[in-house]
């Protein structure tokens, strides 16, 4: 089941070939489990990443993401961890390797509380703190999440088409790579190490385990407190159905008095389900999977599902919105720095002051154009008004940024932000920065080419 959901949630096979992420409309839906939306195969959004982003996005996004998380939690609790999470599957497969195993003990039970710390600090406090400064910082994704490094970072890097990404690797990548490898190696010795001690999503869902509509529960009048269920369970449970239980269901058959049962048992197929029912289920599942592959294959082409028209030139925006003016960055007649950014992107916002400084230092020799992504550009005028009301930077927006006709793609962009190109006075690119750029590098390239 986990394998099936892992494949279904990553049905954009075309993305694995091209090294590009899926941009269809299904990405506005959050998956129940941890599945990085920067994975080329992902066809939906990660709820944890979406939640961290929602703190800086406004009430509507917070309602939407919070509502979905609450919905998943109250419906399934940690059943999601046991049955639907692709990263849970990866951990279980690693645990199957023939290595010495570290068994649960009072220490691991205490350590299982750490995930609540990760939830509070990295998913709530830090993102909220930065959101108050208009900085969208998904701290858990940035500093911890091994699913992001593995499914997003490493898979993207392994594709030759993304060779330009290699230039941005630095201390942050080294840290995350080391952490991911440590967690994955740890999973070979400790059952579901990440789920038990780190995962904030599991911590959140665990709060609903006792209340959830689906999962397992103990019929107390039948229970003899023999302890067989807890001793055989690999998770740090005190009793089945508590906050640590992932409702895998192994204890249902173990219980000698049949005191552990599924909530709403009619939903789950019984062992003696007829062959016809099983076949119908299997055919349906395969059909849905093939349908998802086909749909994403056909619809992953030119990017955004939200059509906004096409402009041959970039539309200039300022603090009041669209100005009606357009600009062609290849025909400014001077050294031109084109920075692709978004108000949703923390590193983009962090480096904007560098461009502002360059623009004010060389007003007659250097043209700095900051191009906002098309989707989400509604927030740009307010941001410009607040932080760059009198800047020499020309702010603009790129229609259909991901289409072949958009400037982002035309100037060599490949999904990743921030992205900066430097053009000479004839419009030819002579420098590219994928990812963040330092002020020193920027200044150096300007001074060398003036």
């Amino acid at each position, binding site marked *: 089941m986990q394998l099936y959901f892992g494949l279904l949630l990553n049905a954009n096979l075309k993305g694995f070939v091209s090294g590009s*992420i899926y941009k269809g409309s299904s*990405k*506005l839906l*959050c998956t129940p489990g941890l599945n*990085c939306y*920067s994975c080329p195969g*992902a066809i*939906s*959004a990660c709820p944890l990443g*979406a939640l961290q982003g*929602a703190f800086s*996005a*406004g*009430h*509507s*996004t*917070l*309602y*939407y*993401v919070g*509502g*979905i998380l*609450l*919905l998943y*939690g*109250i419906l399934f609790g940690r059943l999601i961890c046991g049955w639907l999470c692709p990263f849970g599957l990866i951990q279980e497969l690693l645990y199957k390797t023939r290595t010495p195993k570290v068994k649960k003990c009072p220490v691991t039970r205490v350590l299982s509380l750490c995930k609540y710390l990760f939830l509070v600090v990295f998913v709530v406090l830090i993102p909220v703190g930065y959101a108050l400064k208009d900085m969208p910082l*998904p701290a858990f*994704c*940035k*500093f911890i*999440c091994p699913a*992001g490094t593995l499914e*997003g*970072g490493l898979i*993207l*890097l392994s594709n030759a088409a993304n060779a330009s990404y290699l230039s*941005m*690797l630095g*201390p*942050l*990548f080294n840290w995350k790579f080391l952490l991911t490898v440590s967690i994955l190696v740890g999973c070979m010795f400790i059952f579901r190490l990440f789920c038990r001690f780190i995962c904030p999503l599991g911590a959140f869902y665990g709060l*609903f385990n*006792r*209340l*959830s*509509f689906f999962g397992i529960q103990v019929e107390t009048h039948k229970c003899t407190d023999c302890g067989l269920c807890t001793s055989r369970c690999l998770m740090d449970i005190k009793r089945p159905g508590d906050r640590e239980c992932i409702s895998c269901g192994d204890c249902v058959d173990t219980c000698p008095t049949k005191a552990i049962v599924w909530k709403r048992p009619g939903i789950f197929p019984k062992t003696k389900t007829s062959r016809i029912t099983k076949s119908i289920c299997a055919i349906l599942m395969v059909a849905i999977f093939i349908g998802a592959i086909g749909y994403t294959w056909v619809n992953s082409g030119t*990017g955004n599902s939200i059509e906004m028209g096409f402009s041959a030139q970039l539309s200039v925006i300022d603090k009041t919105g669209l100005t009606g003016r357009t600009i062609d960055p290849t025909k400014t007649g001077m050294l031109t720095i084109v920075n692709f950014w978004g108000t*949703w*992107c*923390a*590193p*983009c916002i962090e480096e904007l002051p560098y461009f502002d400084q360059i623009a004010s230092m060389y007003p007659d020799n250097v043209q700095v154009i900051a191009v906002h992504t098309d*989707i*989400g550009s509604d927030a740009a005028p307010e941001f410009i008004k607040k932080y760059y009301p009198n800047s020499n930077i020309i702010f603009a927006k790129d229609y259909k940024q*991901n289409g072949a006709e958009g400037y982002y793609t035309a100037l060599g962009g490949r*999904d*990743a932000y*921030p992205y900066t190109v430097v053009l000479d006075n004839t419009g030819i690119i002579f420098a590219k920065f994928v*990812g*963040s750029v330092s002020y020193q590098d920027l200044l150096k390239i300007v001074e060398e080419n003036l």
Partner: protein
Amino acid sequence: MTKPRKKLDLGKCSVLLRWGILAAALVLTALGFLTGGTQDVMTKAINICSECIGLG
């Protein structure tokens, strides 16, 4: 004589809480969806913030 204290029916409470949370979740999701809350999720999901996935 003191009146016997009425016991709180925990089973009933949890059922109420369960349905209450479900209703709140549905209302929040619908409210967020109808007021454009999906746009930011979409923006984040279709663009790669290089630093956010630990690339740098």
